[in-house]
């Protein structure tokens, strides 16, 4: 177990270093950044804030990692957040119990994933187009549910999921950690992970070897929908309301970025959920850092883009072949 942990650390070294650098940068601009205090039985501090604010993207990145591993992409997750937030809010407003509301929301998320999976796996539509359909339509559906207004609620149980805490950690952090752990166990303790990788690398050869490719594709899109629905509940609970226009807006792009920054290839195949989670935290640390540093807001997006492009350049194949070329040259020199 320690050996495999060590292997994981080695594989994720670039991502972990990037996270560390971003955290240190934040620390240098804002010395209180790493301070953590306990108050009212809960941890507070900027680092905890990164973990907490990063919850929606982290949740999306879990599902997105598996979708991308099958050589697909899921653009609809931001819209699914809006739909599920709206479903949760309207259900609780109608006076349904929390358990019923959560179950309903999760089922809606799974249905969204089923729709995407059906288009991709059965109708063989390219994933980017197939999921674009729900990305566009999803906000419309969410607006229909909330009837165009921001639907607010006061249910303590639901609000707890956004701002409560458990074992010193904010609830969103607890939720994404649990979901991540369950999904990682699901794909790595069964053969799912290997079969997903096989389909992503060579779908035809996998089918010829007897892998149930359509079922598998369907399953990963449904899992992505499930993750998005949980993220939708957290986002809604956080603002105590469902905003069909803005909930989860552009988060699908952050999720894709998290997966890529986490060292996963958009061409599918080998994947690391932990890598994507580190990627999600890098993105959130950048966001929080910019916010804290007090730059004028108009700089935020540009600074974020610069930091991300640096991370991506360092990870790029061109850079890797350059470094291996240089290290080979020094090797050769050393031998002389």
């Amino acid at each position, binding site marked *: 177990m320690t050996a495999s942990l060590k292997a994981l650390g080695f594989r994720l070294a670039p991502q972990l270093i990037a996270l560390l650098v971003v955290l240190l940068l934040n620390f240098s601009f804002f010395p209180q950044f790493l301070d953590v205090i306990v108050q009212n039985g809960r941890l507070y501090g900027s680092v905890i804030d990164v973990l907490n604010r990063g919850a929606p993207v982290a949740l999306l990145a879990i599902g997105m990692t598996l979708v991308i591993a099958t050589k697909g992409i899921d653009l609809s997750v931001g819209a699914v957040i809006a739909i599920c937030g709206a479903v949760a809010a309207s259900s609780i407003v109608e006076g349904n119990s929390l358990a019923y509301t959560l179950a309903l929301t999760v089922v809606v998320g799974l249905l969204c994933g089923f729709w995407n999976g059906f288009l991709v796996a059965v109708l063989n539509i390219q994933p980017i187009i197939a999921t674009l359909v729900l990305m566009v339509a999803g906000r419309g559906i969410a607006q229909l549910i909330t009837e165009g207004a921001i639907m607010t609620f006061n249910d303590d149980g639901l609000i707890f999921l956004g701002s409560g805490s458990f074992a010193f950690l904010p609830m969103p952090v607890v939720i994404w950690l649990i979901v991540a752990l369950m999904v990682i166990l699901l794909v790595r303790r069964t053969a799912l992970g290997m079969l997903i990788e096989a389909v992503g690398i060579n779908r035809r*050869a996998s089918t010829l070897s007897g892998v*149930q490719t359509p079922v598998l594709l369907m399953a990963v899109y449904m899992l992505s929908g499930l993750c998005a629905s949980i993220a939708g509940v957290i986002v809604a609970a956080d603002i105590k309301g469902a905003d069909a226009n803005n909930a989860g807006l552009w988060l699908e792009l952050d999720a894709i970025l998290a997966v890529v920054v986490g060292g996963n290839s958009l061409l599918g195949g080998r994947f690391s959920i932990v890598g994507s989670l580190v990627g999600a935290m890098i993105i959130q640390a950048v966001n929080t850092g910019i916010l804290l540093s007090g730059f004028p807001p108009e700089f935020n997006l540009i600074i974020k883009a610069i930091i991300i492009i640096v991370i991506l350049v360092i990870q790029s194949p061109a850079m890797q072949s350059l470094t291996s070329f240089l290290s080979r040259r020094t090797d050769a020199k050393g031998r002389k």
Partner: protein
Amino acid sequence: MVHNFENILAASAISKFFPGAVALDKVDFTLRRGEVHALLGENGAGKSTLIKCITGAYRRDGGSLTLEGHEIDPADTLAAQKLGIGTVYQEVNLLSNLSVAENLFLGRQPTRFGMIDARTMNRNARELLAGYGLDIDVTAQLDRFSVAVQQIVAIARAVDLSGKVLILDEPTASLDTHEVEMLFRIINDLKKRGLGIVFITHFLEQVYAVSDRITVLRNGRLVGTHEAAELSRQNLIAMMLGRELAQTEHAAKERTIAAGEVKYAFEGFGKRGKVKPFDLEVRVGEVVGIAGLLGSGRTETAELMFGIESADSGVARIDGTPVTLSSPRAAIARGFGFCPEDRKTDGIIGDLSIRENIALALQARRGWARPLSRAEQNAIADEYIKALDIRTTDREKPIRLLSGGNQQKAILARWLATNPDFLILDEPTRGIDVGAHAEIIKLIEQLCARGMSLIVISSELEELVAYSSRVIVLRDREHIAELTGERITAAGIVDAIAAGDKRTEDA
């Protein structure tokens, strides 16, 4: 080489290397003015590599190219086009959403005052096509017309642009008989105009119908160039398949007639457009060989039996009970296995390790919820790496890093791990080195002795003769003959392929 002046195009000692493979090994090729020259060879023989070296799509690694006596070195297909070498591919590469005239003059439209002069363009297009006996509405969108007409438009464009050498890469693959005749009339006209025409096809009838000379390539080497009139069909097939007929007689060794009973029976099994309905019985512990030229329906037969394509006629029986083979998964559940011809696209999962590649089919059959533990996977992988002598430093190496022969063995291992009863091997020895080649043949014989039923598709006739207890011969997507016992010889197979008649006479 003496009458250099009459050669419009001369390629000498062309070589092309790909990482780890010699695609062309000092191939000579000459094309005379006013000649149709057929370029033949099985898959991977180097035909398309040679064409690509001539048209500049690939840079050659050795040899020289002269056009009308001048050395040329086209940097890309555009340069070759300007020099006078035009190419028409199997899939028409024109723009189907533009008009016929626009396609003909794309990139060189006649202009007036800087605007496209549509009227002149359409008139020129009509005149150009009239030269090909084609009277169609040139303003209509190209995809309104049949593939044959599109093919002719492509030829007209290529000839108009280039006009010295025309390369036709399988132009007849999707044409019917009537359209082929139309195309051949045009080829003959162009020949009279003095063009040199290179014609690539898999249909031998067509080769004899239009060609003046025939060049055969095999494994990247030149086998020979002959006048078409002087080359018999038998000799041509023998050149393509690469076996000296005289030598193979000894291989018809005494063979034990497979004693097992019929286990797998395919009756009237077929699919329109793929393979005509065929009957095939396979006994326990028997190797049935399938022979035929490329495109004769060999792979299609295998794909039908393995459920990759579903049959639209006939029934498959195992031990007399009808079974449906609707998908590879269904076939695998019946104990089938299939090693595909194209290892790269259909076989290996390149980035996964050798261990995972070997475990894949077994894991897929068990389902995702019952994973093979790492220890079990390691044991299976190690067992087959040892048993099949897969040369690798490490079972965790990505399979794409292995040589072709070792990849093939790993895919065989993937199936053997599922303990199949019925194994279909499509070209198991293609593109692998001599040592691995012999090992795979030995393995086929061992599996057969263990009581497995095998179907082996191969272009290597000597190989088929060595291990098959029966050989099915295919031609034009039809099972035309079944050779048994003493009739299984390389010469017998060649005769069966060559025979125009449906029935084969005893050799």
